[in-house]
């Protein structure tokens, strides 16, 4: 094999656009190397990942100029089918990349497609799942797994054909620290077998010690390149200047410790709980909660998956009934119905929360104070999108539309569920600023997050849930 990954003056322009998205990319990757490509959203990372695994230009179409080779397959000439045995891909969204319903079938899928004998498929599944430590998941239904578990299966599935190249396209976006650790271990094991691994990531911290080279994409070009040693020398501030997330999370973790609530009952609290237990009739998830949330403050809710953050959020916002205990607003007990009227839970996926055909109509839907529409549009930088269909906006813009409608509906409690998962540094900062602005309207703001950078810098206090 002469060319593992080689790009010579590669440019790529999407259909119906006037400018090339990728401009003059030159990259050479050798066998066994692990490189990481980072950069802001829209810098061309995803576009390049699709050229690497053959999805572009054949399926996500566009014009390719220059020469690109993946495992000696030439982009634009080789069929996607030729890439299948050589390149494995793992994608960002755990919910939409599995073709089957259970783990066994998902792992069997690539081998079935290549016509492998069923007996051998079974052997391979056992072999690979043991090697990558997912054998305990084999008898499970994918719809009952956590995001981290789904990604683990996706990982193994991508490796069932023993590809020489593995592409990881922002695979940790939705995962908590524990899940990221498990992914990290998998990558280390695969690297030890000599696989060439290309990682596209915003969350850099977990890649220390795995990646050999770091490449920065900016506006469709390669702006800079570092060896692992050079990159590890960069301080968090230097990384931020480059538009990248922190590498060293220790400082952030210290900050978080400082912000942990020492005393949990404050007389000024707008929203508080007394001896609250949340969960289900047969299964209490959290117990004895005496929490307090102040108006005009951002409280972070941290903890690994499965500790009950979502259940707590559902209960505080009135979606779910509490099991025992009380929830108080201004020191008066409130009912589930009152809580729903006061709250808005901004979910991770904006697609479920947008109902209208224009930003203006969306924000006015259910609005209590429609007269403030113009001010709100201005404050959230949405004026120019007034007549646009919400679904045509970027994720960040959609998020602001949802927030605007919550505000105009007079919601006093706003809870965010993983608002910055998958966001680059700049957008994470923008969101943090947005949080600060929200504080001025004296809302109770709660943020459920895995994002330690967000929590350490932008939360006023933090509640940490443990298993």
């Amino acid at each position, binding site marked *: 094999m002469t060319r593992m990954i080689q790009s010579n003056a590669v440019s790529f322009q999407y259909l119906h656009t006037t400018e090339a998205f990728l401009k003059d990319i030159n990259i050479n990757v050798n066998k066994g190397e692990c490189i990481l490509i980072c950069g802001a959203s829209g810098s061309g990372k995803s576009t390049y990942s699709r050229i690497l695994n053959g999805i572009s230009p054949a399926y996500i179409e566009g014009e390719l100029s220059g020469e690109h080779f993946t495992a000696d397959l030439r982009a634009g000439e080789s069929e996607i089918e030729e890439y299948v045995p050589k390149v494995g891909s793992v994608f960002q969204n755990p919910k939409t990349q599995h073709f089957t319903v259970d783990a066994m079938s998902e792992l069997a899928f690539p081998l079935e497609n290549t016509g492998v004998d069923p007996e051998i498929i079974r052997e391979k599944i056992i072999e690979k799942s043991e090697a990558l430590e997912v054998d305990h998941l084999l008898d499970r239904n994918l719809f009952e797994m956590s995001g981290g578990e789904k990604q683990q299966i996706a990982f193994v599935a991508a490796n069932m054909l023993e590809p020489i190249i593995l592409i990881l396209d922002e695979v940790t976006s939705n995962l908590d620290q524990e899940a990221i650790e498990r992914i990290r271990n998998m990558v280390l094991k695969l690297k030890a077998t000599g696989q060439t691994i290309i990682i596209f990531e915003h969350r850099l911290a977990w890649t220390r010690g795995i990646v050999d080279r770091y490449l920065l994409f900016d506006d469709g070009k390669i702006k800079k390149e570092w060896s692992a040693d050079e990159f590890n020398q960069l301080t968090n501030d230097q990384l931020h200047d480059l538009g990248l997330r922190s590498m060293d999370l220790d400082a952030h973790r210290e900050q978080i410790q400082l912000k942990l609530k020492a005393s949990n009952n404050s007389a000024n609290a707008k929203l508080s709980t007394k001896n609250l237990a949340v969960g289900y009739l047969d299964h209490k998830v959290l117990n004895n909660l005496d929490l307090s949330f102040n108006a005009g403050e951002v409280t972070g809710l941290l903890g690994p998956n499965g500790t009950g953050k979502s259940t707590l959020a559902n209960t505080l916002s009135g979606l779910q009934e509490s099991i025992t205990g009380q929830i108080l607003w201004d020191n008066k007990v409130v009912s589930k119905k009152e809580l729903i009227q006061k709250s808005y839970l901004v979910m991770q996926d904006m697609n479920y929360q947008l109902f209208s*055909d224009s930003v203006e109509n969306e924000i006015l839907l259910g609005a209590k104070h429609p007269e403030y529409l113009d001010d709100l549009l201005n404050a959230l930088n949405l004026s120019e999108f007034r007549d646009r269909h919400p679904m045509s906006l970027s994720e960040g813009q959609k998020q602001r539309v949802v927030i605007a409608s919550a505000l105009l509906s007079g919601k006093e409690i706003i809870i965010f569920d993983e608002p910055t998962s998958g966001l680059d540094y700049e957008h994470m900062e923008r969101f943090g600023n947005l949080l600060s602005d929200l504080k001025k309207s004296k809302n109770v703001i709660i943020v459920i997050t895995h994002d330690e950078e967000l929590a350490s810098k932008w939360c006023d206090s933090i509640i940490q849930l443990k298993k």
Partner: protein
Amino acid sequence: MLESKKKKIQLKEHISIGVYTAIYFIICALAAGLTVLIIPGYSYAFIPVITSLLAGTIYMLMVAKVPKFGAISIMGSIMGIFFLIVGRFPGATVIAIVISILADVIAYLFKYRNKVGVLFSYIIFSYSLIGPVVPMIFFPSFYQDQLIEQGRDAAYIEGVFQSVSEYTLIILVVSILIMSVIGGVFGQRMMKKHFEKAGIV
């Protein structure tokens, strides 16, 4: 977007067809749930009526996303296969397949783009679900024989069945027509208001 320039349906479009057929199926199940509550036993004949009212948007979306011959036929055939699996009259499957191919041909002639043409195609497609009702209307002899055995007057029974069957058939044909026009136009409005405006199609 993943639309292919090639004329034949590609694999990726099969996946889209599967996704949209799943939603069509769910709407059909929803319609079944609603009709059964009205007059048990008899009203199940009117499932196609409610389905055609509700499913317009999905049909229009699928035609916009996969404007090639075969998508509509496949959707109808899968519904037909479902009839077979739940033990309905096997002719229902054949009817579903034939009518959906017909609907597909009509849409094809209008290049899957002309609004009136696609609406017409949807109206025809809406009749593909009447298969299970056919025995009730065209082969009432099964039910008649037993009544006659029980001693009812043969001529009387035949008369009853004939008139109710005709009556039912007319109501069915007319209401599917009306509802599919309403549902289809609603679907096309949704296309313009949301999917075209958002750039999805």
